[in-house]
């Protein structure tokens, strides 16, 4: 099955010689949410900018719903909405007119009812007649989203939607994305907040130094890497794991005073309560318990380091 976006060997080398993107290939399915993770300057924005038409690639192709972005750019661009990283709005324009203007640019006829619907869904309807310069930062960002949605795009690009945004606003932005997903919009977002990728994405792509290191379902990544480790400190050292507890994947520290237990956070039963109960029954006194999660962040850091070493 071909995806709504097909990227083949996409490369970008700037005149200065900097290679911003090397041979990126990926396919994005309709309706999914992809989070592109990567450090600053990794090439995330370059990738998005090429697909949207802001940057001219030096090699490779991109097709949006079958339309090549270079040769069939009008059709390709009509399907795309972009929310840029930097807030850029005409300061004296009202919210409503600004959204209506964008709709016109995309060749769509006037449809005030639809614009009203978009503004209401983004909690901007009360501000429709306000000049954009008088809005708060969060509202401005929502205006940018409203503009990007003005022509009912099938694919929405969000370039660092929550960069420099406070926690409340971030949650708010996630809700907006969730709502768009329910409406069937394909969303590609870049972020360097792993929490954001964990929260929203169906698949996660990791980009570093212009290369796509991997793109995999988030759940799979979390299952593989997102395990938790329970460390149980014992009052008295043991020589070995008691036979009753063998086969549970428990490990005893060389000093014998610590047991570690790896468990899957996504599993229905973690087995922690049972383990602690059994320890008590066996008369083993627990001094302290701590847990540690290998987060997407660690996955990410190790991947980027591997990428750099390669």
């Amino acid at each position, binding site marked *: 099955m071909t995806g709504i976006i097909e990227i083949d060997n996409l490369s970008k080398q*700037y005149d200065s010689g900097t290679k911003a993107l090397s041979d990126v290939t990926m396919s994005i399915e309709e309706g999914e949410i992809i989070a592109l993770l990567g450090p600053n300057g990794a090439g995330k924005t370059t990738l998005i*900018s090429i697909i*949207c*038409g*802001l*940057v*001219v690639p030096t090699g490779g192709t991109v097709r949006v719903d079958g339309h090549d972005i270079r040769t069939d*750019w*009008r*059709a390709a*661009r*009509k399907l*795309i909405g*972009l929310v*840029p990283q*930097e*807030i*850029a*709005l*005409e*300061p*004296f*324009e009202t919210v409503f*007119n600004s959204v*209506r*203007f*964008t*709709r*016109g*640019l*995309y*060749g*769509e*006829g006037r449809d005030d009812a639809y614009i009203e619907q978009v503004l209401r869904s983004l909690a901007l309807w009360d501000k429709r007649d306000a000049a954009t310069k008088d809005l708060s930062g969060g509202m401005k960002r929502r205006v940018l989203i409203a*503009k990007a949605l003005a022509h009912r795009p099938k694919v929405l690009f969000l370039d660092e939607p929550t960069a420099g945004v406070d926690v409340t606003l971030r949650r708010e932005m996630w809700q907006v994305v969730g709502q768009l997903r329910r409406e069937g919009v394909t969303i590609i977002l870049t972020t360097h907040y792993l929490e954001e990728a964990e929260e929203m994405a169906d698949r996660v792509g990791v980009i570093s130094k212009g290369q796509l290191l991997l793109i995999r379902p988030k759940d799979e990544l979390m299952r593989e890497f997102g395990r938790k480790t329970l460390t149980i400190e014992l009052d008295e050292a043991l020589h070995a794991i008691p036979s009753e507890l063998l086969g549970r994947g428990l490990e005893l520290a060389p000093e014998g005073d610590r047991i570690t237990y790896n468990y899957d956070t996504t599993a229905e039963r973690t087995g922690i309560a049972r383990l602690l109960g059994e320890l008590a029954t066996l008369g083993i006194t627990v001094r302290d318990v701590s847990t540690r999660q290998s987060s997407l962040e660690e996955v990410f850091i190790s991947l980027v380091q591997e990428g750099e070493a390669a």
Partner: protein
Amino acid sequence: MTLLNWPGIWAIFHHEMMRFFRTIWQSLASPVVSTVLYFVVFGAAIGGRIQSVEGVPYGAFIVPGLMMLTVLQQAVSNASFGIYFPKFSGTIYEYLVSPVGWIEVTLGFVGAAAAKAILIALVILATSFFFVGVHILHPLWMLAFLFLTALGFSLLGFILGLWAKSFEQLQIVPMMVITPLVFLGGAFYSASMLPPFWEGVAKLNPVLYLISGFRWSFFGLADVPVGVSLFAVAIFIVICLAIIRWIFATGWRLRE
């Protein structure tokens, strides 16, 4: 060729015109006030000594030149500001990611800038009726020259706005190039009033051809044949269009 995105052209044109109408009084007041001043200074004070140029009263003789001066200034500044402002505010990205090509963007911005310039020129013409009796010999040709000039210089302004990287650059060209060309282009005198050598130099000035043609449409008098004037404007427009097309095709100062 793909069909043009007309709603896109209209969106840009309408957006630009709205800005003009939001500040309609400022937009009109300054050209009208300066025209009145020109009439007072050139028409009344100097005109009292010159009487007439080739049979046309001096006050009336300067009307086409004044209109041209305004059209050139307004066309260049409106078009250059129109496209420079989105570059400055960052909203230029919208034009680059939406399905509008160089033709749509140019038609929208340049069309609006030319429309504003023509509107202001007509207001100046109306103002001049209060000071002098002006009879227009070829009204349709007058409108045609007005339109072509507004178009040509809006295109030039558009290029300027695409090129400019700062507000200073945006202002330096109208100040250093356009205004001198208009003054030396015979806005307030006939080139034939100059000594032969300077008359030859004046004929290297493209604006002379515009003013000459325009003045011909009013009084039937011209420094150069009307056909040459028309040809010069047409060439000018074609060159500007070619440059704009090149800028959008290569993405110079627009795309990375």
